[in-house]
């Protein structure tokens, strides 16, 4: 039981996929323009990550070593296509705003990385907890970045059509640079630098 909780906590803080392992930076940089996108992306990644970890850990004893990577990729690609089609069918507006980044989950290093490094070597319950931890860790990082970018870039925070707050002065003169791709690099690098400098996360 203690091991399971450790697996869960591992992904959220100690080896947070985005902030520590620096995996999955492509979607983190690209879709973190609004909190809505961050939540949508997190849900999609969480589903794919949990399902792929379950399947990979279930078949781990039967998978021949030599074809394990192609097998993982086929499994992940299938799951991503299922998510993509379901989103287009049932959540068309979210699917439109996430665009190409849903199909690109296939090459998200977090998922293949966890399949290879953890799920293929551990029991299913541990693999599920690991997937949850990593998924939440990814969600946490992308939400923080989206929060900063959306607040500074538009001056007001709107989540699922509900206005949470408005920054006086900033909403009339927002700083769109934070919404632009360049802003993503600025925010993530400053965030990483701050976290490391303050000792919240330790490098290496």
């Amino acid at each position, binding site marked *: 039981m203690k091991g399971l909780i450790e697996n869960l906590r591992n992904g959220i803080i100690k080896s947070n996929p985005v902030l520590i392992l620096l995996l999955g930076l492509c979607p983190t940089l690209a879709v973190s*323009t*609004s909190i809505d996108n961050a939540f949508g992306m997190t849900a999609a990644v969480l589903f794919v990550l949990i399902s792929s970890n379950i399947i990979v850990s279930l078949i781990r004893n*039967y*998978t*021949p070593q*030599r*074809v394990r990577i*192609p*097998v993982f990729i*086929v*499994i992940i*690609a*299938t799951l991503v*296509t*299922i998510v993509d*089609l*379901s989103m*287009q*069918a*049932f959540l*068309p507006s979210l699917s*439109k705003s996430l*665009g190409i980044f849903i199909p690109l989950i296939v090459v998200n290093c977090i998922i293949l990385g966890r399949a290879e490094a953890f799920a293929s070597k551990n029991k299913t319950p541990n693999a599920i907890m690991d997937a949850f931890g990593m998924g939440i860790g990814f969600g946490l990082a992308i939400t923080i970045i989206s929060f900063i970018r959306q607040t500074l*870039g*538009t001056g007001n925070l709107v989540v699922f059509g509900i206005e949470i707050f408005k920054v006086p002065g900033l909403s009339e003169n*927002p700083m*769109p640079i934070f*919404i*632009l791709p360049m802003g993503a690099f600025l925010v993530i690098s400053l965030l990483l630098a701050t976290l490391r400098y303050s000792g919240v996360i330790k490098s290496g």
Partner: protein
Amino acid sequence: MTKINLKMEIIPVIFLTFIVCISVIFLYATNSVTEEYIENAKNEAVKATLNKQFTDMDDYSYDENLELYTIFLDNEVVGYAFVAVASGYGGPIELIVALENNFLKDDEIIIHSISVVSHSETPGLGERIVESSFEDQFIGIDINDVALNKDGGKIDAISGATISSSAVVDTVFKTVTEKVDSIREGFNLNSEEDF
């Protein structure tokens, strides 16, 4: 020796083939379930946009040859609409351009309205092409006035988003001109056949 080779070479192939087969089954199942919903979602999106533009429409039909929507109210044609794609700053901008129904009789072409269906412009800048303050400038203007202010037209560009604004304006002008020509041709052919 042969036995070891067999195990080493064949089993991975069989295993991978097996996984792929299972994937195909799952994908086939997902596709057959979602196909209808995806089609519906697309039609709904088009219908919602047309409804926004022609608030009093009650039906529409789609001509696949001309790629043209004809809008009806009480079985009378009240306007035409078609999809145009502009290449904006961040990628394609999909628009629905609606025309008043008079261009078949008159030389004059009047834009009914335009509406942005999808785009990937910069949030806060080019994204403002979806705002009514931009889109509404097109309502009821003559095709010859579709140009940015600085080029002698009647459309104000969005400040900070000249590329997005002029992409929309240029595309509306170009596609409307082409479309009207092909529609006029199409209708002339049809009416000649009628005689």
